[in-house]
């Protein structure tokens, strides 16, 4: 597609369940990011993938959060044993490369509600 695609757009899950959020980046973009947007908190960096390099996981809030990127394209963010504080909009973005050309294009996000 022309832009970053995220699915599902909305997800309601029960506390304690695992969820998987999917991101399809723009074709050819080597960099992929996950952010979390909570009400009044702005955007919080979670994880960054660049090509075949080891991902930067420094923003993951706990070991319940993990992400993978298969074949340098699609990425999946997994949250295990979800908690109510995990409720937020999870945004994925992709960009061409590092440095000055690194304009990030964002998807529409997945709104996660943990009940």
């Amino acid at each position: 597609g022309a832009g970053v695609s995220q699915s599902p757009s909305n997800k309601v899950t029960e506390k304690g369940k695992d969820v998987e959020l999917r991101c399809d980046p723009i074709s050819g973009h080597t960099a992929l990011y996950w952010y979390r947007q909570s009400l009044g908190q702005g955007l919080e960096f979670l994880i960054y993938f660049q090509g075949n390099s080891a991902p930067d996981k420094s923003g993951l809030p706990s070991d319940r959060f993990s992400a993978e990127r298969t074949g340098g394209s699609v990425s999946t963010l997994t949250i295990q044993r979800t908690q109510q504080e995990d409720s937020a909009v999870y945004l994925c973005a992709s960009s061409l490369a590092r440095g000055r050309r690194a304009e990030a294009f964002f998807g529409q996000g997945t709104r996660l509600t943990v009940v």
Partner: protein
Amino acid sequence: AQSVTQLDSQVPVFEEAPVELRCNYSSSVSVYLFWYVQYPNQGLQLLLKYLSGSTLVESINGFEAEFNKSQTSFHLRKPSVHISDTAEYFCAVSALGYSTLTFGKGTMLLVSP
């Protein structure tokens, strides 16, 4: 590490009035600066960016921002706003050579007739 401060969580203005959304950043290294806009129920879109060169950058819809290194600021301005400018605006910074963006908490611009 970098940080971004957007002092105003909400800015209400009347249509056709000027507006300034404030952004200050902190960084020990040189940075790139960005403003993103999020319209209701939509994703983030890049509004404008400062990479190098002229410290005044403009967007296609009349917004401009000026990089002020001495004041570590990158305030966003528009001389006359429209109802359609109602959105949340995020200032962001990334260190040179590193792509991860650090965002401010956002400023909600509310334009009323």
